[in-house]
């Protein structure tokens, strides 16, 4: 699962499939108000696309596209968006996550401000769920020491 398999069928199918999975994850997020879905499900679908990339290619390919530093950054960025939206509502005179108060800074009425506030926190939830799921999978599949593994593989490649 970590090492690279040279299978042209699996790699080609996954290369066509992964962008559609990620677009579907964003669709689930964007239509989460009126239909089933939302940030958590969309984040799980985005994480599943990265898991499929790990299985079909190898760990280095995933780390090249979605590095560990970016993963940690996304983990905290989603929480920051969620809590920041709530704190902005708090600063504007409402309760925590009272999106109606966002109409003071957004050029909309309170009804649409609630819509945009919900979309903002769902975006935060999606980013955090995606990053945490990818992080859990990478830690499971490498027994928690993938930084050393990648460095050893790089050193092995240089010595060849």
């Amino acid at each position, binding site marked *: 699962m970590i090492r690279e398999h040279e299978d042209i069928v699996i790699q080609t199918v996954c290369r066509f499939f992964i962008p559609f999975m990620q677009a579907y994850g964003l669709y689930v997020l964007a239509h989460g108000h009126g239909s089933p879905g939302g940030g958590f*499900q969309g984040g799980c*679908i985005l994480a599943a696309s990265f898991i499929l990339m790990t299985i079909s290619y190898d760990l280095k390919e995933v780390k090249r596209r979605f590095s560990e530093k970016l993963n940690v950054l996304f983990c905290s960025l989603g929480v920051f968006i969620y809590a920041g939206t709530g704190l902005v509502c708090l600063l504007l005179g409402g309760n925590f996550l009272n999106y109606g108060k966002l109409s003071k800074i957004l050029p909309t009425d309170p009804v649409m401000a609630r819509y945009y506030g919900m979309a903002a926190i769902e975006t935060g939830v999606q980013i955090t769920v995606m990053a945490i799921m990818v992080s859990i*999978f990478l830690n499971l599949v490498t*027994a928690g020491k993938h930084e050393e593994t990648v460095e050893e593989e790089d050193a092995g490649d240089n010595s060849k």
Partner: protein
Amino acid sequence: MIWQINLVLLSFAVIAALTAISVKDLLSAVVLLGAFSFFMCLLWTEMGAVDVAFTEAAVGAGVNTAFFIAAIYKTTRRTKD
């Protein structure tokens, strides 16, 4: 909401769950757990809880199976007890 379909799906879910906890091969147990998640997803869809069914399909059948297979890949495939 048709109670015959509910009964059939519930029977399949119970059979899949009982087989998953009694089988010795852990990879088979993981696959049976994925089947259990899928039957629960169908059951929830049939009972009208589409949001819960979607979460079950995304998490239970999709990500959870990959997590368990990764854990088996790092440990043993046969159960000790």
